[in-house]
């Protein structure tokens, strides 16, 4: 059993990404910094358009043609990935860093047998023979739970169900024993029962290989089940990060509160569900202050004018909200958040 550690394997520093559009540059990532520790799972949560996918695509060098990295570094093995040549990048991705995409229907080649597809990263990155690569493909396909893998190597993706296809995608990602797995909503397209199996599988792989995982999702239920640490993104920025318990039981940013409140649980019986009022800002012209301020019932004057810095809550937990400033007034917490804080307080009492 491999435990998560505190030693960073990847660090993203002050990343800024713009997209060129006819209306001008869209500031999709606005100064994002975080580290990924060896052997841990970091979940990045946020709504569509918050920049979570763009962040991991920057790591893989998979941004669209109209994207421009304006500033920042992505450090991996003492080198800046963003300075890599195409050749260096190709040596890295699919080998040291592998990615699992959301849609298993479109991330497999429908015209290539699955054995060849799963073995392809090994053939590209090592000088292994085709026969040995296929034998290795059988091994990882068995590992991810594809039955009769040896007999099914010549089958095509359409002969498998959605859940099986996602297992095949995962097999392809882990065949090179990557140090980092980037999983972009890998379970969003799957049924809950299959989702539970895939999450269990990723945890098992991590426990045996010590792979570090960045897991992107908008489902906080999934985050609670898989993450060691969590980063919450809003409008191209990280607004709060911390250990999974810190985010779920001691959340500080009103946006994190809104996300937690909007999730119905099986015990929700209120007449109406909580919704976050308004819509995310236009990133063509991001607002000067806290981007969440116009939708934030707890916003103060300063939120509209000045961007809040990160205020530390613990050595592992920080949030960018002026509510944590010593001069900020005490606010009455929403009931759901007060309930979660009580769990947190009870734990400290022990």
């Amino acid at each position: 059993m491999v435990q998560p550690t505190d030693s960073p394997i990847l660090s993203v520093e002050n990343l800024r990404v713009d997209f060129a559009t006819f209306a001008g540059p869209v500031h999709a990532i606005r100064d994002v910094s975080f580290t990924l520790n060896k052997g841990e799972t970091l979940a990045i949560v946020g709504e569509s358009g918050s920049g979570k996918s763009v962040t991991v695509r920057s790591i893989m060098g998979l941004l669209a043609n109209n994207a421009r990295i304006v500033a920042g570094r992505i450090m991996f093995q003492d080198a800046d990935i963003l300075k890599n040549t195409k050749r260096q990048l190709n040596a890295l991705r699919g080998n040291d860093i592998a990615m699992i995409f959301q849609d298993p229907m479109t991330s497999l080649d429908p015209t290539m047998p699955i054995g060849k597809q799963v073995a392809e990263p090994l053939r590209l990155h090592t000088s292994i023979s085709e026969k040995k690569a296929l034998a290795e493909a059988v091994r990882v396909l068995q590992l991810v739970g594809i039955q009769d893998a040896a007999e099914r190597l010549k089958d095509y993706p359409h002969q498998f169900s959605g859940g099986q296809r996602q297992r095949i995608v995962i097999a392809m990602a882990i065949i090179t024993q990557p140090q980092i797995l980037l999983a972009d909503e890998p379970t969003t397209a799957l049924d809950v029962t299959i989702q539970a199996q895939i999450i269990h599988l990723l945890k098992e792989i991590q426990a045996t290989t010590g792979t570090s995982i960045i897991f992107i999702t908008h489902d906080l239920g999934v985050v609670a089940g898989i993450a060691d640490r969590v980063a919450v993104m809003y409008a191209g920025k990280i607004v709060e990060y911390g250990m999974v318990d810190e985010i779920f039981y001691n959340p500080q940013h009103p946006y994190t509160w809104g996300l937690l409140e909007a999730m119905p649980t099986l015990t929700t019986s209120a007449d109406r569900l909580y919704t976050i009022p308004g819509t995310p800002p236009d990133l063509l012209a991001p607002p000067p202050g806290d981007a969440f301020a116009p939708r934030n019932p707890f916003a103060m004057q300063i939120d509209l004018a000045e961007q809040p810095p990160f205020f530390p809550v613990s050595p592992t937990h920080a949030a960018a909200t002026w509510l944590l400033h010593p001069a900020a007034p005490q606010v009455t917490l929403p009931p759901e958040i007060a309930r979660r804080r009580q769990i947190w307080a009870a734990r400290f009492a022990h």
Partner: protein
Amino acid sequence: MTNDSVTTSAKRPVLVQVDHLVQTFNPGKKDEVKAVQDISFSIYQGETLGLVGESGSGKTTTGRSLIRLYQPTGGDVLFAGQNIARLRTGSPAMRDFRRKVQMIFQDPYASLNPRMKVKDIIAEGIDIHHLAASAADRDNRVNALLAQVGLNQDHANRYPHEFSGGQRQRIGIARALAVEPEFIIADEPISALDVSIQAQVVNLLKDIQAKQGLTYLFIAHDLAMVKYISDRIAVMHNGRLVELASADEVYNHPLHPYTKSLLSAIPIPDPAIERQRTPLVYDPREAEDNRPRQLVAVYPEHYVWAAADEVAAYQAAAVRQHREER
């Protein structure tokens, strides 16, 4: 075999009655698919019935059979007492049925014609059914519908691509409401939306129901949201209805092994609960051998798909669960 009295409470008026519905695609051919295999249930006037199950369980096919997008292979579907399986295409009765029953689709990107203005998308049904007295009346109706779903009049002259996923789903809802329906089938209407937007759309659907007394069939695989919106829940697996009861009953006292496995897989936004999760794996051999089974009431208003010799065990389990709760 099930009959009307089995899945119907005598006290409440029934709007939709499904009797032994069978839907087989390519019958008799090599690629025959038995999508729905002999299911019976009813939907009460004014209620929301949630229909849950995994992909391929037949829940969407059931919804489409109820709106007569498919001609049933066997069985009857009664809407307000009228057998819709026998309606002739183009007949006045069929046209009336098509107005009274509307559908909201899963994919807000694929279900709106990208080349039509929003006002024409919404008014298409109004035009077909000649509901507007004049052009001004048509515009007034469209504006009222836009306001009802939380959009404004300026949106009427725009095209679908100018809207976000949540806004498009609102347009889809306005289109369904335009013809003053009685029954709405919502096929995974929130699956493609972000969590905070899902809550907005669900609130909207609830508000509309409260105001207009609509009846909903809400098809979904997000079980937390289904529990929240539904009065009763039907669980489907492999084309069969395996359990049917009130929402609280299904969640608090599930009896069929498939329902139990489905509930055990729901992720809960609480790390302490998640760390203790043990998903139950459902083995279809447990409850789907080829013995004759039917939907049986094993507790008041709680139905399970069971063989004759399994009924007693289910009844005992239901009684035990309820006693433990007290």
